[in-house]
């Protein structure tokens, strides 16, 4: 091993599944890419020899599981995230090079075992799983694991590795001499369930009880590669450049922003300071605890004593709650229980709830329209009159995961299935609301919350980044509950705009009134959003549910922790790595990563003409949203700020195309094609892409 940069484990592990061989690569030459998304993108570029592939299940695809320098440290809400990149599966019309993310303790264990990233290439000739223990790599036969669900798979592996009760006592590691290496910890396993084995687009990678890497379809890619699971276990350490500064910043951040668990402000506005767990099913037992990923400032999940629902959260707990509420009218206990059991089962079979949760409503509509049922246009043996029941829920999930019944039709994605079934019109008119790249809307309509939609279509997937979205939730819930706004619209716009400098001039970037959503101000906000994501969130691996903290009522002045000179993202980054960068330099790194990804998308076949929403976004005004308001700061004709309902509009296609042109220009991309230009490649140190882009005639300028 060469020189070990501060914050890094020092080596990258490459496994060639075709040859069942492992090699170790020094991390040092990749340090300029930070970690996570940036590190993974550069590794993909170097290891994937054919970047024209359009389906992640192609044997030539390379998947990278990458950590950041912050992983395995007590950096608040950043120590436990892990990024996965590669060509995904399930997008429409092309499965792009994309990304996903998983929490828990997988990334920290990977680093403690000696590796900053795992590069997976080739395809095993038979099912395998990989064990990594303190730098040692072993390929195991997984034929007996194939067919098992994710939970059982992990428990089987843990038992196999834990044969001396290691992990629940202070014991020597397996195969080690006593007193050499000890741990009280358990290996961290990431596995696929049946959905991944069956290579369905909505399959999810699962780690521990409730961590999933769901969007992107990487579990299908694992399945195609015959890779059932990966386990990391290590007793190592991460060297910090300035340990005292790191500890001080963590203490300071807790003091200023963290929720007080003994006096929780349940109506707090902001990200870092949120106290309550993110669970839409309600609590099924008070005999429970908050549960957190490594290093988190506040747990967002719960473990109960009831034997189900552990670590489930957010959409996984929401997707079946509404059907169940309809079916079990008034039986709150049953509804909550079923919502959590369904979430549990999704994690067990390894399936992405976002991929199908809105599609359930569409399927129900097809049933009522007489298009879905026994002998109908789409045949199914599932009884949709029992949608919401326990029996239906499990049967529906089994169909999707095991590619049975309607699961066969929708295995490549719901848009693809709709087209096969002759229902493309439903995709176009938004009955099947998949606005970007054939992927399900996240719940925030692109016609209302435009930065979410713009960023999704100008990258590769549902952006799933709540930086600005926190405003929607705070203002909308306050409106819904008839309580005062904690921060008025003018103030929040000013606070956020101050955080976004020098990208934006002032608070007008936050004005989402109809006349401003195509402005240069919003375009600059979008650029900040993408760059922030690509570096601070996806590469440094700050958690989306805590960062960016743009505004925060836990602070006296309502100003959030993001970019703060004492507790901002860069403070922890610098304390760990010693790089000494400014917050905005991280954004520049994010820009560079985004440019490199544009080179990959171009090789895959992207052109700006393809970069558009589903037709309904341009043609139909919003009919309904999940909540009865969609509140956002807006200015009226007199320049007066207020929170306004921004539903009831559509996107103007011509104006959006002009917005794209200005965006491409600002990014340094070619306005005609959206491709990287030679000039930009040279300017941003991406000269290594030029030859390959020229070979495929995908370099502009």
């Amino acid at each position: 091993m060469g020189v070990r940069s501060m914050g890094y484990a020092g080596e990258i592990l490459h496994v060639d599944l075709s040859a069942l061989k492992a090699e170790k690569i020094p991390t040092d030459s990749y340090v300029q890419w930070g970690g996570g998304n940036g590190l993974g993108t550069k590794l993909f570029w170097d290891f994937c020899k054919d970047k024209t592939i359009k389906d992640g299940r192609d044997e030539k695809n390379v998947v990278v599981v990458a950590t950041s320098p912050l992983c395995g440290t007590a950096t608040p809400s950043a120590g436990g995230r892990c990024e996965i990149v590669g060509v995904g599966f399930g997008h429409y019309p092309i499965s792009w090079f994309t990304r996903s993310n998983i929490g828990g303790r997988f990334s920290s264990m990977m680093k403690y075992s000696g590796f900053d990233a795992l590069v997976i290439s080739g395809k095993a000739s038979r099912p395998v799983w990989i064990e990594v223990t303190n730098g040692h790599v072993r390929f195991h036969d997984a034929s007996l694991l194939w067919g098992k669900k994710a939970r059982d798979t992990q428990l089987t592996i843990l038992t196999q590795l834990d044969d001396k009760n290691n992990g629940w006592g202070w014991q020597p590691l397996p195969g080690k001499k006593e007193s050499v290496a000890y741990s009280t910890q358990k290996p961290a396993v990431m596995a696929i369930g049946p959905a991944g084995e069956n290579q369905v687009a909505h399959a999810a990678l699962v780690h521990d009880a409730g961590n999933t890497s769901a969007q992107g379809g990487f579990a299908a890619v694992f399945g195609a590669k015959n890779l059932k699971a990966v386990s990391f276990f290590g007793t190592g350490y991460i060297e910090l450049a300035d340990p005292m500064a790191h500890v001080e910043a963590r203490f300071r951040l807790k003091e200023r922003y963290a929720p007080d668990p003994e006096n929780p402000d349940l109506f707090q506005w902001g990200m870092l300071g949120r106290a309550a767990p993110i669970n839409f099913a309600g609590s099924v037992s008070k005999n429970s605890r908050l549960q957190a990923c490594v290093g988190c400032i506040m747990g967002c999940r719960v473990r109960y004593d009831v034997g189900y629902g552990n670590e489930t959260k957010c959409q996984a707990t929401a997707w079946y709650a509404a059907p169940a509420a309809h079916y079990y009218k008034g039986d709150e206990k049953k509804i909550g229980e079923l919502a959590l059991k369904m979430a549990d089962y999704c994690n067990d079979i390894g399936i992405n709830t976002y991929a199908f949760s809105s599609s359930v409503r569409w399927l129900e509509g097809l049933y009522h329209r007489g298009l879905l049922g026994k002998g109908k246009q789409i045949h199914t043996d599932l009884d949709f009159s029992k949608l919401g029941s326990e029996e239906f829920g499990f049967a529906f999930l089994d169909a999707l995961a095991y590619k049975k019944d309607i699961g066969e039709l929708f295995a490549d994605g719901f848009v693809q299935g709709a087209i096969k079934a002759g229902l493309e019109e439903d995709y176009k008119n938004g009955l099947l609301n998949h606005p970007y790249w054939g992927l399900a809307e996240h719940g925030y309509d692109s016609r209302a919350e435009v930065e979410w939609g713009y960023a999704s279509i100008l990258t590769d997937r549902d952006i799933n980044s709540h930086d600005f979205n926190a405003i929607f939730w705070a203002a909308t819930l306050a409106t819904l509950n008839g309580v005062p706004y904690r921060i008025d619209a003018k103030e929040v716009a000013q606070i956020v705009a101050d955080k976004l400098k020098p990208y934006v001039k002032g608070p007008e970037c936050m004005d989402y009134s109809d006349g401003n959503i195509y402005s240069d101000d919003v375009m600059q906000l979008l650029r900040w959003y993408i760059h922030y994501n690509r570096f601070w969130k996806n590469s440094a691996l700050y958690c989306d549910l805590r960062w960016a903290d743009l505004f925060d009522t836990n602070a006296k002045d309502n100003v959030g922790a993001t970019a703060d000179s004492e507790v901002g993202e860069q403070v922890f980054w610098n304390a760990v790595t010693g790089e000494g960068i400014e917050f905005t330099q991280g954004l520049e790194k994010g820009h560079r990563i985004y440019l490199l990804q544009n080179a990959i998308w171009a090789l895959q076949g992207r052109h700006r003409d393809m970069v558009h929403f589903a037709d309904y976004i341009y043609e139909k005004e919003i009919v309904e949203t999940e909540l009865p308001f969609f509140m956002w700061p807006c200015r009226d004709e007199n320049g007066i700020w207020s929170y306004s309902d921004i539903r009831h509009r559509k996107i103007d296609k011509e104006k959006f195309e002009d917005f794209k042109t200005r965006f491409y220009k600002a990014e340094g991309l070619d306005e005609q094609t959206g491709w990287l230009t030679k000039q930009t490649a040279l300017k941003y140190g991406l000269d290594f892409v030029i030859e390959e882009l020229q070979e495929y005639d995908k370099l502009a300028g």
Partner: protein
Amino acid sequence: MSDEKKYGGMDRRTFLRTLAAAGVTATAGAAFMLPGTNLMVMPNSKGYLVVDMAKCMGCVSCMMTCSTVHHGRSSLSLSRIQIQQNSFQNFPADIHMAVCHQCEDAPCVNACPVEADHVDVLFGNVRTIDPDKCIGCTQCIDACPWLPKRLQFDPESKKVQKCDLCANTPYLKEKGGPGGVQSCVKVCPTGAIAYVDKMPDQDDTTSYNVNLRGEGWSLLGMTTEDMKREG
């Protein structure tokens, strides 16, 4: 010879307490060996860590901060507090918190053949290990009656370490040790670790697990009831 015979029918701890009652104590000074015996008489620590295992959320921030303030490195294996977590278990057995008890009659101190594991009178009588003296024999680990062991072997330095209540923390800005800052207490997001100056009941194996959940905790939907746990 069994302890009972050696100490006049009393177990070791009862015997020491009898001595204390008779005025033979070391509270004002360093530990000393009682003449004619193999008994170490040691002053009580002036501080202790107690935990609430129902309040911990398993983020292991305490572990990473512990190793950081002591070693400048973030590591679970170099942490003097150990949080064990089984994601597939149900509450409350899914998490176990293991802190050094700063035992009244610390077996690890008694077991050390070179007096590396000692009572530090300069830092509130905390039981601690002098790394310069430690020979890595791990007899202290063997002597610790708890599982997981409350002492850790560092395979790189080949020394044993234990909780010193942050007395010797080159990377902690504030003063640590009894009466000072304990980094695990300060960093814990939920307040699941507390520093107390009253010795927990040494005869009760559950006494280091206390209830640190106030009424505010119930607003988060979690129980505030007492939960006895050993460790």
